[in-house]
């Protein structure tokens, strides 16, 4: 989950109880206020009625206990009752014609004295329908909740995206960064301290890695170059020695062992140089190469070796495969793969090359078990103890 959505999720979760709690509090506060103003209104009506009695005493006698004509009614009571009477407001239900249902009404009971008579006064007024109110409130608050969540999400997206922009910039660059490419990062400047810290740290780390990578590469290259001349001297001296002396068979054997070892050293050195050259991108000019034709040519070059091991190279080319690559590198790559298949393959078996549009595949029969995929391209990782194997062939292939 992205950081952005992560915070939004928590905000949304937190908002739900917050708004619910707020709604309950708000509902009761509002209800309290409504009751308060209803009760004030009822009390005011009582005063108005008392004033009307002076002009029209008939209202005292109307006997409308079901409140069918008026919203008030007077009932005579005894003096003792009048004295002990306590004003009250309460809720009750009454049948409403328009709603055809029982609806809550507020009833105000009070007692008045008119001359010597005492009356109990009841005034009613229609009340807020609580169930409707709750329903409405839930609906409105739910809308508010959604509105809030969406606006927060939107704001977050907008804001956080802007804030985290330098971070994403950095990540995008790091994702495609390859130390072999010798490219530096373009580190963005941010006015957020944490990002600046991250940027400078990453920058420092990469600079250091690149430096040591370059130093290592240079070292290998220099070491390989420096080895060429001593190797040449040794090999040539031995060759001169072989020519100029009548040597015994066992001496020849010893010398040939030394020659072989020097030969191996030379190959190793050449391979290392080749590897650093590829990594240094010292192979320029690329052109479109017909890999099918090249494969056939190289396979033909290996005919003698294959025949010697009683192996056969089959090239199945159903499609024309063309690729833009440096010709020398293409030759090295295909040579390496085909040679590997032959050298490490089982005698009297076949090496199968399949060329399709977009793929080049080679298969052989192994002498032992399946190769370890994880270390296949690691330098100096050898699957067998071939005395002439440098352990660099597949590293070179991978570099190409």
């Amino acid at each position, binding site marked *: 989950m992205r950081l952005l959505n992560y915070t939004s999720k928590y905000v949304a979760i937190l908002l739900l109880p917050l708004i619910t709690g707020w709604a309950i509090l708000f509902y009761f506060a509002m209800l309290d206020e409504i009751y308060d103003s209803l009760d004030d209104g009822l009390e005011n009506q009582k005063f108005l009625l008392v004033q009307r009695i002076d002009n029209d005493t008939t209202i005292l006698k109307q006997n409308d206990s079901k409140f069918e004509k008026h919203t008030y009614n007077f009932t005579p009571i005894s003096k003792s009752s009048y004295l002990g009477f306590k004003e009250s407001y309460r809720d009750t239900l009454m049948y409403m014609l328009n709603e055809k249902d029982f609806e809550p009404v507020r009833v105000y009971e009070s007692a008045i004295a008119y001359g010597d008579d005492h009356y109990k006064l009841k005034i009613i007024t229609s009340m807020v329908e609580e169930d409707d109110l709750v329903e409405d409130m839930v609906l409105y608050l739910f809308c508010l909740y959604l509105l809030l969540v969406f606006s927060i999400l939107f704001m977050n997206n907008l804001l956080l995206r802007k804030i985290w922009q330098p971070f994403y910039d950095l990540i995008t660059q790091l994702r495609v960064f390859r130390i072999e490419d010798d490219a530096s990062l373009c580190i963005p400047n941010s006015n957020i301290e944490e990002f600046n810290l991250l940027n400078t740290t990453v920058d420092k780390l990469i600079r250091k890695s690149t430096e040591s990578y370059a130093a290592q590469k240079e070292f290998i290259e220099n070491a390989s*170059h*420096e080895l*060429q*001349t001593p*190797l*040449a*001297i040794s*090999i*040539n*001296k031995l*060759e*001169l020695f*072989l*020519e100029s002396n009548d040597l015994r*068979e066992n001496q*020849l*054997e010893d*010398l*040939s062992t030394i*020659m*072989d070892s020097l*030969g191996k050293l*030379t*190959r190793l050195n*050449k391979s290392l*140089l080749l590897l650093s*050259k590829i990594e240094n991108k*010292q*192979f*320029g000019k690329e052109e479109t190469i017909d890999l099918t034709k090249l494969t056939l040519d190289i396979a033909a*070059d290996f005919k*003698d*070796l294959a*025949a*010697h*091991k009683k192996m056969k190279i089959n090239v199945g080319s159903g499609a024309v495969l063309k690729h833009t690559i440096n010709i*020398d590198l293409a*030759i*090295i790559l295909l*040579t*390496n793969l085909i*040679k590997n298949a*032959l*050298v490490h393959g089982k005698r009297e078996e076949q090496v199968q090359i399949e060329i399709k549009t977009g793929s080049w595949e080679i298969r052989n029969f192994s002498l032992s078990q399946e190769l370890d995929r994880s270390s296949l391209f690691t330098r100096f990782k050898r699957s067998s103890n*071939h*005395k*002439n*194997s*440098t352990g660099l*062939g597949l590293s070179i292939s991978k570099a190409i």
Partner: protein
Amino acid sequence: MKILIIEDVPEMLINMKNSLEREHYIVEAASDFETAGDKISIYDYDCILLDIGLPDGNGLELLKKLKSEGKNDGVIIVSAKDSLDDRLAGLDLGADDYLPKPFHMAELHARVKAVLRRRNFDGSTVVEIGNIIINPENRTVKIADEEITLNRKEYDILMYLTINKTRLVTKTALAEHVWGDHIDQTDSFDFIYSQIKNLRKKLKKSTINLEAVYGVGYKLDVG
């Protein structure tokens, strides 16, 4: 034939000098930029072996100087740096060949011979050995005036051994020359043997013999 070796490493120089002198070339040597510069302006050589990694100057400058003086000496660049740029720069400047170190002496001879032949300093277009005549131009071989058919590899082996007729050619040198550099990582050079065997059959009527030297390589025996 006069050959100049420009090489700063003394041991390397001695090896090359010894080997070339056995072929009866007149070999001169220069081990620094200045001496080399003087020699190439004063004398003419048939072939110059030029190490471009001299401590006091770039060998390519010597090549430029040579060409600017209008000299036609054959030049083989010898370098410890098998670099594509140097190779291209050298060939662009008019070098005949580029030989990366380390190399086999047999290979050096083959390259020198090829340069000399190309420049026709030998005076003849064919190579004679025993009763065999090889024509490098159209790659034909005749035994006592009778043409024989050799495949590409058989021809290359014969030519290589012929050029190096006085010396022992190691299997490695032969394989690298005939089959190319890439062949050198195969587990053994035994596959050479089948080609040699075929070649021997075809050369039955000749006066030369391809002699195997135990475990090391081959030598041409002119009977």
